[in-house]
């Protein structure tokens, strides 16, 4: 949660500075964001790849557990697409890209604003922050009414880190491993799915 606040405060600082026009133009140079994004993707890749724990968890899993990230993908994309039908100012494709953030708001918002414009980037930022907050707040209700996988599904990509403690608390330790597994798969898929959805 503390990490989320720090990340948000950088966004808000930029926002306030932008509103009052205090920054020089070169900061908004498109090349700067592009190269920063290239750098980010390499280091995120290295960070995931060098997580020895993560890969040993992946190897131990069976097909049944693979269903968990699978239903998160199908459910998030279908649910967001359904909402888009009722909204006049967002396409189904854009809505699915936002849904494919799976709660990983920092990466998905950066990515989506690059591919589809700043406005959708902000939608992705807010929507995926809401996802993390709802998961943290609603966990006991989710587990009670929708079973022990509901919190993991709700957490999406965050079930491997920020929402893991509450998942373990309400679903039990044995579900912690499933949460990490599902979170890793979804985290890896965020940039891949967002690109795939927006570029077809």
């Amino acid at each position, binding site marked *: 949660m503390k990490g989320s606040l720090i990340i948000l405060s*950088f*966004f808000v600082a*930029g*926002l*306030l500075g*932008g509103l009052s026009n205090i920054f020089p133009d070169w*900061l*908004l140079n498109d090349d700067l964001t*592009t190269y*920063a994004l*290239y*750098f980010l*993707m*390499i*280091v*995120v*890749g*290295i*960070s995931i*790849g*060098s*997580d*020895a724990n993560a*890969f040993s968890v992946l190897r131990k899993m069976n097909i049944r557990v693979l*269903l*968990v990230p699978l*239903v*998160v993908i199908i*459910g*998030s*994309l279908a*649910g*967001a*697409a359904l*909402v888009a039908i009722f*909204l006049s100012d967002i396409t189904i494709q854009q809505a699915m890209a*936002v849904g494919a953030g799976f709660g990983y708001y920092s990466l998905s918002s950066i*990515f989506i*604003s*690059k*591919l589809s414009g*700043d406005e959708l980037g*902000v*939608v*992705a*930022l*807010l*929507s995926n922050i*809401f*996802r993390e907050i709802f998961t943290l707040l609603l966990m006991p209700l989710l587990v009670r009414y*929708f*079973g*022990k*996988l*509901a919190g993991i*599904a709700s957490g999406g990509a965050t079930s491997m880190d920020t929402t893991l403690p509450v998942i373990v608390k309400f679903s039990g330790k044995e579900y912690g491993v499933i949460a990490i597994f599902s979170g890793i798969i979804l985290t*890896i898929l965020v*940039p891949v799915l967002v*690109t795939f959805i927006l*570029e077809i």
Partner: protein
Amino acid sequence: MTSYIVIGLFIAGIFIGRQLKNKEKTRKRVDKAVNYAIYLLLFLLGISVGINEDIIQNFSRIGYKALLLTIGALAGSILLAKVIYIFFFKKYQEKES
């Protein structure tokens, strides 16, 4: 095009990372670099949103859209999670215990 370069770099990063599994110090530095890159990029996103009047004037509409999309995505995931829990996890657990 940018997006494919980005995916390529991401996959390359994973392979590089696989070679650094046991280098604790390097891993910590990499995680720090991830954070700094995210700070920078969200800061820059903040600026370009701040100077974009269309976005600022429609902020409540954007927030409303975001909220509805979250509800949709969550409802879909949670309902399907309940289905697989009942059919594939709950039973299995009872058999074990």
